[in-house]
């Protein structure tokens, strides 16, 4: 699995951080930072959940 985040699209809602703390963080302007591009196991499930709950469509993944 590989995660992509489009920082120009992100609106900084933080849903991804709440859903998958080991995979996503926010910088000081609240814009998404990917901590783990290829999460595994539980983190992979959490990352899928995060992609679904992102309101801006900034996140995508290749399985």
């Amino acid at each position, binding site marked *: 699995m590989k995660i992509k985040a489009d920082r120009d699209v992100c*609106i*900084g*809602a933080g849903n991804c951080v709440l859903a998958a703390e080991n995979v996503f963080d*926010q910088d000081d302007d609240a814009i998404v930072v990917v901590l783990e591009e290829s999460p595994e196991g539980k983190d992979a499930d959490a990352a899928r959940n995060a992609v*679904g709950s992102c*309101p801006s*469509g900034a996140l995508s993944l290749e399985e």
Partner: protein
Amino acid sequence: MASPSTETPALPLHMRRERFDPPAEMREIREQPGLARVTTPIGRPAWLVTRYEDAREVLGDAARFSSAGLPVIPVPGTTPEEQRSGNLLMLDPPEHTRLRRLLTGEFTVKRIRRLQPRIAEIVDSHLDAMEQAGPPADLVPDFALPVPSLVICELLGVPYSDRAEFHRRAAKQLDLTRPLEERGMVAAQSRAYMAELVDRAFAAPGDDMLGMLVREHGDTLTRTELIGVASLLLIAGHETTANMLAIGTLALLRHPEQAALVRDDPNAAAPAVEELMRFLSVVHTGVPRTATAATRVGDQDIEAGDVLVVSLPAADRDRALVEDPDQLDVGRAASHHVAFGHGVHHCLGAPLARMEMATAFPALLRRFPTLAPAIPFSDVDFRSASVVYGLRSLPVTW
């Protein structure tokens, strides 16, 4: 326009509820192809969007569905441009993007986590006061309203001693059954009040959010914009969370085994908050959207200029989102709901609101393990005719 005493029958479908639920008609409409017609409180015809996928499509595409088309209520002493200025809800990208990016830094998950101890303190001090006074209590004025009000006041730098007045004004501004002139007058008073606070922040920026915005962005944010931003944050920051705390508590008390879970299991609070948000979806619709070009939604032809209202509770009770959508089940993961909206206008304060709720619900239930409504369920005073659904009061005992 309806008078407050006849509110329920006169309300448009998308603002009606049957206690915790959207009206039964809403379900039928969701299951029929195409979109239904409704009339907004100001008498404009609109398409009603009820399905989860359609809701995400409309809210998720600000280029096709503009939030800027709304005529604003005439407010004495200001122009419509001034009124829109700084009100994120009524701006489209790129103006929206620019302003939102100035604010998001204040609402990161990390920043909000740092507020947790203070939120817990505010919650505890209100529980102490309830305990000392003894039962019965009215949960709305004693807990649900003051907790988020105090939090947003401290965060923004608004003197809490002014709360009685801005509560009264906010309730009137969001009450869609009041005459437009009255809502306009009240909005003018709110602006004048906020202008004073903003001028104070420009003169001597403090440690609060207004001060921080002046220090960090004082060169790009205009005074008018800051007044708009601050007014929006003050209203959006307490009316919404206050209603969720009150009606959310009632929903939990109606499901004692689920209340027990939230009370006893520290890991249950966060998912329970998401499920309560989904199940109750207290914001009826969000701002009406205007189609910028001819298009199609849910097999319905839409013309350029048509208005669409997206029913958040209808979308959040769609089987496309969860199984058994009409059941409250705080144990399920329901985080893809649209109760905070969707797309670029997704709630800016969501991390704060989540933190407030995840702190307040368990603390309340732990302090009063025998908490129960002090009146029959059929007598509970639900408040519908407002942008935010909730309870006028909730007498409780323990």
